[in-house]
């Protein structure tokens, strides 16, 4: 029979779907309390695994000397081959270290699996509704034998919302997470699937097992499986070592403990589990459970409220409706600025832009550009200050050779035209006004600084590539210049990746 008091705690915990917003007092109190997260054996295995992987990756990549697979630069291969005095001893080291690793992992898997399998929860899983989430969950539980590592419906949702949040598409709260978050579980799954592949292909290659065909196939498979793990490993190491929000998770892999605040905010479902365990433990020790000790204590500022009230409170807070931001009171007329015309349809504008470009090709035999004009301004300044240097410089030389004016160029006049054309278009569309285009999170000053910084970077990049988005990407793209397309892909790749880093500037 369950104790009615414990049942009530269960009830309260169940009604807490999301972590409540904590007051600073509560945070202080929680921070002092540590929750045990990792067993010593897990910690040791983790770092053993890390060290072995570092050695295996170093020797493994140094073994790849054929041009098909070579991933490391030649100097690294030279250093490694020098250290081991040749390829053969290094291979031997790689194999023996691999075998040690396999043995340790195998022991952990065999004994660990038995320890982890929880008969009760497997029974629960069997009874669960047959949705695809639950089926996947069951398969994972059979595979890992540890439900902490299995992705459930909440986790899939978490992955979805997390991605959307990164892209700035939503500010939905993240679903509560268990002992490991969905990202960690995803990495766990990847490692779990790839490890057997690495082990089997490694053994086949090391001892030339079965047929030669199989050995030949093992090479790319081994390479592929390791590559997949390394891809995940980069995120794993970044999260652990660099990402500030995950710092407590990193330290928990050293001490075994995390602060309760971190557990509460990042691993809410696990936090509830720990509370349940604490209740059971107290019950065993004292023979009675005081709800106040276990749960109410955590919400110090809300001490006056009874335990039933917490359930209500949790409900209120999770379903709280945000008050609307202050706007004009209903019925009050706010004088609107003169309405500017909407922008042209992108595809229509694209056709017009293409026609302008085509006309330029037809008349001038060259395309449009921008950054070249600025380079010529530089050349002019340089030629005024140090004429000799400008002429002998490989950069400015061709702009000023033979006493030519650096301004006697198509691009210079074209850019002047761009200024006029842009102003005319803006003027007729009633878009001319003074404003600073920036994200809501930064001040004008910050925007200026970063605009300058971005401009400097773009200037360097454009001159290095001999063109900018108009001169190289647009014009080069239309004439199918390889350099133009390479440049364009590079610009967008860096833009999309870099945008994440500077998202605070814009979102």
């Amino acid at each position: 029979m369950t104790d009615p008091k414990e049942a009530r705690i269960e009830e309260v915990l169940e009604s807490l779907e999301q972590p409540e917003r904590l007051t600073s007092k509560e945070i202080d109190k929680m921070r002092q309390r540590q929750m045990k997260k990792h067993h010593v054996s897990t910690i040791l295995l983790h770092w053993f695994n890390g060290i072995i992987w570092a050695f295996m990756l170093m020797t493994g990549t140094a073994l790849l000397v054929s041009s098909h697979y070579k991933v490391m630069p030649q100097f690294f291969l030279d250093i490694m081959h020098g250290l081991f005095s040749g390829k053969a001893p290094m291979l031997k080291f790689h194999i023996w270290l691999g075998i040690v690793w396999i043995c340790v992992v195998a022991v952990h898997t065999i004994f660990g699996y038995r320890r982890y399998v929880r008969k009760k929860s497997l029974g629960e899983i069997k009874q669960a509704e047959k949705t695809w989430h639950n089926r996947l969950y069951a398969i994972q539980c059979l595979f890992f034998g540890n439900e902490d590592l299995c992705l459930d419906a909440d986790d899939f949702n978490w992955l979805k919302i997390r991605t959307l949040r990164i892209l700035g598409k939503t500010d939905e709260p993240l679903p509560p997470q268990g002992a490991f978050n969905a990202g960690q579980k995803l990495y766990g799954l990847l490692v779990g699937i790839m490890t057997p592949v690495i082990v089997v292909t490694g053994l086949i290659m090391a001892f030339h097992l079965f047929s030669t065909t199989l050995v030949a196939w093992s090479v790319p498979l081994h390479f592929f499986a390791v590559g997949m793990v390394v891809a995940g490993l980069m995120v794993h190491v970044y999260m652990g070592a660099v990402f500030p929000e995950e710092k407590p998770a990193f330290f928990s892999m050293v001490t075994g403990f995390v602060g309760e605040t971190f557990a509460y905010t990042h691993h809410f479902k696990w936090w509830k589990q720990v509370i349940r365990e604490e209740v059971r433990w107290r019950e065993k020790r004292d023979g009675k459970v005081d709800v106040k000790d276990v749960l109410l204590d955590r919400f110090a500022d809300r001490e006056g409220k009874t335990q039933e009230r917490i359930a209500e409170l949790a409900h209120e807070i999770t379903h709280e409706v945000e008050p609307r931001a202050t706007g004009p009171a209903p019925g009050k007329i706010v004088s609107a600025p003169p309405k500017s015309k909407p922008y042209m349809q992108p595809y229509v504008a694209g056709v017009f832009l293409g026609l302008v470009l085509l006309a330029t090709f037809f008349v001038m035999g060259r395309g449009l550009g921008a950054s070249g004009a600025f380079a010529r301004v530089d050349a002019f300044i340089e030629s005024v200050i140090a004429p000799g240097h400008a002429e002998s410089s490989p950069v400015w030389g061709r702009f000023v050779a033979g006493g030519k004016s650096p301004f006697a160029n198509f691009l210079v006049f074209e850019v002047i035209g761009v200024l006029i054309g842009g102003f005319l278009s803006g003027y007729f569309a009633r878009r001319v006004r003074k404003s600073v285009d920036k994200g809501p999170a930064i001040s004008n000053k910050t925007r200026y600084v970063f605009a300058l910084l971005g401009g400097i970077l773009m200037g360097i990049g454009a001159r290095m590539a001999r063109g900018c988005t108009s001169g190289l990407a647009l014009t080069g793209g239309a004439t199918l210049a390889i350099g133009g397309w390479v440049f364009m892909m590079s610009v967008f790749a860096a833009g999309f990746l870099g945008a994440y880093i500077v998202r605070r500037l814009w979102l």
Partner: protein
Amino acid sequence: MNAPLYKYGLFTLGTSFFIAILAGIAFGFVLERAGFSSAKKLVSQFYFRDFTVLKVMFTAIVVAMLGLLYFDMLGWIDLSKVYVTPTFLWPQLVGGAILGFGFAVGGY
């Protein structure tokens, strides 16, 4: 027809500067009409919110490319006289990455 007109000496360097201003006006006009004057709009593409830049750019590239192709097929233009940007693979790869990051930082 003998095009590119300038390369066949239809007008002088001085006239070409006048044409450059006209081309620039048209260029700037269309860019502003498309919304390229707003840094936020330009950067929005990197946050998957507004793909105007990609749409405009690729439509323009396709139109100009097909135009050049048909002009060549009809014998209206001598493509060998059209300037094609030379390829410098590594500088353009690295320069592109620097410019791309600067794009995200500065918003062009």
